[in-house]
């Protein structure tokens, strides 16, 4: 296990006041909040910052953490000294900080134990009234699919990791496999509702629902904007000048013949109507022309470019008046 320097995480000095710690936390929480920051490591950073704040904002936890001394460095191998927290009394058993619940690091848990985990994962609130019937909690998960699955529909077996409370009150992660049919036409950011696949109900309330938020694996060829799909199509200078017919792959896995008219310019957007993500009103596939110029390496190639130059009186910089 690695030591975590919570002061370093928040970027404050060990002697920082509560107000300093709070404002440093707030600033970083806004910066790394996963709804605001789309960088890959944002969620991870947001959790780290939340964990650091949970310790440092709490006088008791901070005092206990401080008495381990200031010689530890972040990332150093760490085992809590025996009885390290002897004489400290924690008024709450668990994790009280900002951030998503149930995501404390091993380091945090070794010091402060596992928090009281709220039912149903992050953001869940559980109702405790025993005499009532309640529908089970709705659960949420994110899954990544391929663009082609949105075109053709797909059947996927997905593994979900669910934190659950065991009889002794400890949080364990259970893996659950679901065989899900991905409907044709689903788009990134949309949610698929699987009725009755959420948490169990109470009394005569039925089970909750499971919502799967869909996102696409990054695709090296296509860009997706809602139901429209974009493809950059590189063409040689003679192809755009003289016109040609090229084969264009579609995300559905088919191939289309596309006619490039003579004197096509770079950046021209050709719309293939209805070839975007299918739905009642299907999206479009846009093919954007790019001109790829081959390097002149051999003498023959250099001569070809020179002949090219001679044949045109072409100044691409007339508008610069240079």
């Amino acid at each position, binding site marked *: 296990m690695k030591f975590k320097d919570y002061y370093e995480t928040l970027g404050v000095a060990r002697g920082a006041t509560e107000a300093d710690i709070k404002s440093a936390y*707030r600033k970083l929480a806004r910066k790394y909040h996963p709804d*605001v920051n789309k960088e890959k490591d944002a969620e991870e950073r947001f959790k780290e910052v939340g964990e650091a704040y949970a310790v440092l904002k709490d006088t008791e936890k901070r005092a206990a953490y401080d008495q381990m001394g200031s010689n530890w460095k972040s990332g150093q191998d760490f085992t809590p000294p025996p009885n390290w927290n002897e004489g400290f009394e924690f008024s709450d058993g668990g994790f009280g900080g900002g951030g998503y619940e149930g995501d404390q690091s091993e380091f945090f848990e070794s010091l402060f134990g596992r928090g009281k985990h709220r039912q149903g994962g992050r953001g869940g609130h559980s109702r405790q009234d025993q005499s009532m019937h309640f*529908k089970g*909690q709705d659960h949420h998960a994110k899954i990544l699919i391929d663009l082609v699955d949105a075109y053709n529909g797909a059947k996927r077996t997905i593994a979900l990791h669910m934190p659950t409370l065991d009889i002794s009150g400890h949080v364990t992660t259970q893996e659950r496999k679901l065989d899900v*049919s991905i409907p044709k036409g689903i788009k990134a950011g949309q949610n*698929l509702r699987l009725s009755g696949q959420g948490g169990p109900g109470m009394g005569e309330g039925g089970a909750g629902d499971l919502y799967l938020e869909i996102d696409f694996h990054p695709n090296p060829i296509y860009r997706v904007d809602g139901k429209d799909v*974009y493809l950059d199509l590189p063409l040689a200078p003679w192809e755009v000048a003289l016109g040609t017919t090229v084969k264009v792959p579609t995300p559905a896995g088919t191939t289309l013949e596309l006619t490039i008219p003579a004197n096509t310019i770079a950046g021209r957007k050709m719309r293939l109507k209805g070839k975007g993500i299918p739905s009642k009103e299907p999206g479009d596939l846009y093919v954007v022309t790019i001109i790829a110029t081959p390097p002149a390496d051999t003498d023959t190639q250099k001569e070809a470019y020179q002949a090219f130059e001679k044949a045109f009186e072409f100044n691409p910089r007339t508008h610069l008046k240079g």
Partner: protein
Amino acid sequence: MTQTNITWIEGAIVENEIHMSIVELSQAASTSEELIMAWVTEGVLSPTGSSPQDWRFGGDSLSRTKTAVRLSRDLEINTPGLALALQLLDQISDLRAQLVRIGNSSKG
């Protein structure tokens, strides 16, 4: 290889097919009906229907409400602040979509 019959679970695309009542939305986004009402008043959510009992939230409301729940909880922002944050996030997402349309030339 043994052949097993798998029952594939069919789901409904929330954004296309589902309209939620305030009760369903509060259950699905794990938040209170009171907060949802406050967000409707602020214009964060725009259901159809004239009174909370008749409100029907379009499918897009679910992810918007989930974002609202997370932002207001994690950053302790009040309702007007939340409305502004969501409006700015919408603008950013429009700009990102523009970048997608422009493609390589934007990456330099």
